[in-house]
């Protein structure tokens, strides 16, 4: 029943879709190269063969069309799970997502809903250059009506994806592609550890859900709160262990709705807060987190909320590791915040 299996993140995501296709006849999966081939990252491998061509299929290269037909399918009663091949390519579909899917329940007063889960690999660290590395998550948190979910482990990826698919509102589900095959500590010059060595790669083979909107405390600590998500959870954890600082590391998992209780409780306890994300700094989600923390924990803060982020430039191909908010940047911020 609850047999466990070691899965990497792609396998866990594939398993979530496989289960949902079987459980809910309304689930349909489609996107560029998603059908016969199984996706450029293989997330949908085998699903067309198993569930048939009208449940899992390839699409024209039109992100506008992909999101647009998803909305129409929702009105029919389906539960579409489209893939956008890279988060960098979501913009042509943004109008359908923002002006339509995100507003549909509201503008129709509940007549029509859009239970769509848009999966998309995001983030850098794979020498993908500026068009295969972006982290646009903060945009979606500004658009009322969309939920934004980002897993950091195979276990979370499967449970959150199932919950996202079952959710009756549109969810953008960003998958940190750098850690599809193994948790990345930010040391690009060290060999990648496979997921099989990580506890969170033990994934139930069957159905389970992780509620959206709940953060995970991946390390309890008293000296400092680190708010992060996706790939950066692992990088932050590695730095914390290495520096021996007693940080509380919180994997937000859902950016919107945010687990404000977990954040407040932790910062009020530690008195120090740092945000780590890969996205460009200005108006990144770190801004919202910093604003919220200072609003709600002002009198508990011993130091300003620190933001450790990507720089406000496009993701540069050859200077990827100077751009990436790796151990040095995080370490320096920890030093600073602990001194303040």
């Amino acid at each position, binding site marked *: 029943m609850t047999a466990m299996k070691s899965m990497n993140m792609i396998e866990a995501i594939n398993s979530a879709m496989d289960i949902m296709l079987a459980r809910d006849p309304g689930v349909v999966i489609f996107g560029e190269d998603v059908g016969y081939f199984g996706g450029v990252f293989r997330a949908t491998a085998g699903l067309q063969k198993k569930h048939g061509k009208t449940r899992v299929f390839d699409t024209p290269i039109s992100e506008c069309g992909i999101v647009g037909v*998803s909305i129409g399918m929702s009105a029919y009663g389906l539960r579409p799970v489209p893939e956008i091949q890279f988060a960098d390519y979501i913009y042509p579909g943004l109008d359908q997502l923002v002006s339509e899917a995100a507003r549909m329940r509201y503008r129709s007063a509940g007549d029509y809903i859009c239970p769509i889960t848009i999966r998309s690999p995001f983030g850098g660290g794979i020498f993908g250059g500026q068009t295969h590395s972006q982290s646009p998550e903060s945009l979606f948190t500004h658009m009322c009506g969309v939920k934004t979910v980002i897993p950091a482990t195979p276990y979370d990826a499967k449970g959150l994806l199932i919950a996202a698919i079952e959710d009756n509102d549109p969810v953008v589900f960003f998958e940190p592609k750098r850690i599809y095959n193994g948790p990345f500590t930010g040391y690009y010059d060290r060999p990648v550890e496979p997921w099989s060595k990580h506890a969170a790669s033990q994934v139930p083979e069957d159905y389970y859900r992780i509620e959206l909107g709940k953060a995970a405390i991946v390390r309890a600590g008293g000296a400092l709160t680190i708010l992060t998500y996706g790939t950066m959870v692992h990088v932050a954890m590695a730095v914390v262990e290495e520096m021996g600082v007693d940080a509380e590391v919180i994997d937000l998992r859902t950016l919107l709705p945010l687990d404000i209780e977990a954040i407040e409780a932790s910062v009020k306890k530690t008195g120090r807060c740092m945000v780590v994300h890969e996205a460009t700094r200005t108006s990144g989600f770190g801004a919202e987190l910093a604003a919220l923390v200072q609003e709600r924990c002002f009198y508990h803060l011993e130091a300003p909320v620190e933001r450790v982020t990507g720089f406000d430039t496009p993701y540069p191909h050859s200077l990827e590791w100077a751009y990436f908010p790796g151990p040095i940047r995080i370490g320096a911020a920890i030093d600073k915040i602990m001194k303040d």
Partner: protein
Amino acid sequence: MADHPHGNIAPLRLHVPEPKYRPGDSVDFSDIAVPPVDAISRPDENSPPSPLSALAYGLVRVLDFDHSAKGSWNPGLDADKLRLMLRNMMMLRAFDDRMFRAQRQGKTSFYMKSTGEEATSVAATMALAADDMCFPSYRQQGILIARGYALLKMMNQIYSNRADHLKGRQLPVMYSAPECSFYSVSGNLTTQYPQAVGWAMASAAKGDSRISAVWCGEGSTAEGDFHSALTFAAVYNAPVIMQVVNNQWAISSFSGFAGAERTTFAARAVGYGIAGLRVDGNDPLAVYAAMRWAADRARTNNGPTLIEYFTYRAEGHSTSDDPLAYRAAEEFAKWPMGDPVNRLKAHLIAAGEWDEERHSAQAEELADLIKATQKEAEKNGTLGHGLHHPFESMFDDVFEHQPWHLKEQCEQMLDEQRSKFGADWMPK
């Protein structure tokens, strides 16, 4: 490599389209081809698209100048159905007039008429099954009228009042009516196009027999969504009918800015290898026949059809617009395809199924009905006059379940109301 020295080549020119007539011009539409009825006869619905391409360049017509219904496209509707069609179109026109006036009287913020284009929504809808799904733009209130949606509900929406089914959230005319298989109207142009295709794909994937129909204006065909929709419809052979209401104008821009100088809008279909029909949009029987043909095709797995209704926007774009600023005043009067209401009326009279007295009586009856309904609606309030949905409803339906931040913001808003109306003000 440069074997093309530019030296003695004439300069390039940027062509910027210009309509034939502007304010003050007198209008001559004699160059608009009005082919005889049945110039292109009706092909079997099961024909593959390629031999059909002439249909994209002709003009499907049924009602001739002598008011008779003719030719292979003649849908042969009985008199009751024709009278119902006329009634629906008259109702729509009366409704538009009344609501336009209501806006001018300050009872709401905005209104959009469909005068002159009534056939393209009313007759088209009457050719569909009641549960075929309609994805309208903002100018197809005729669908609701043809499907018997309550006028009172429409008015409540226009007034954004306390009985407005959409809780005052939407601009007037942005209806939503699932009970009439009528999708939520968007303020963003052409977004409904791929949505309609997706709905049709879903119906086909499920082996259902329902089809979908979608409308947009000719100006809106320029949006990328139009292309996405045609591409997806062509690729998956979706049972969808895509309609372009070519009413010649997009606010102040004539159809040339959507490409009409070069070819028809129905011709877009040819580019995707799908069926395309160009139809006299002011001929309710032609509209009905074309829609029925396309619906039969779609329902029998013969795939999508694109229909262009060649018509004319008789009035301003909306209550915010003054068309006299950019087009010649007499255009509609000179429109060679006439007025759809008058044409159907004349046809029924010519057929001995209608007369002037019944017509004026019906016009009066409808005007009264609408006036009475308006009174009812105004009891529920008009925009900005206090009778609206409870303030806290603003925070509903953003998500299925209200997250903490919306709960907090709702509290904040209620505090603001209390500080405005007094401490014992209660949300209602």
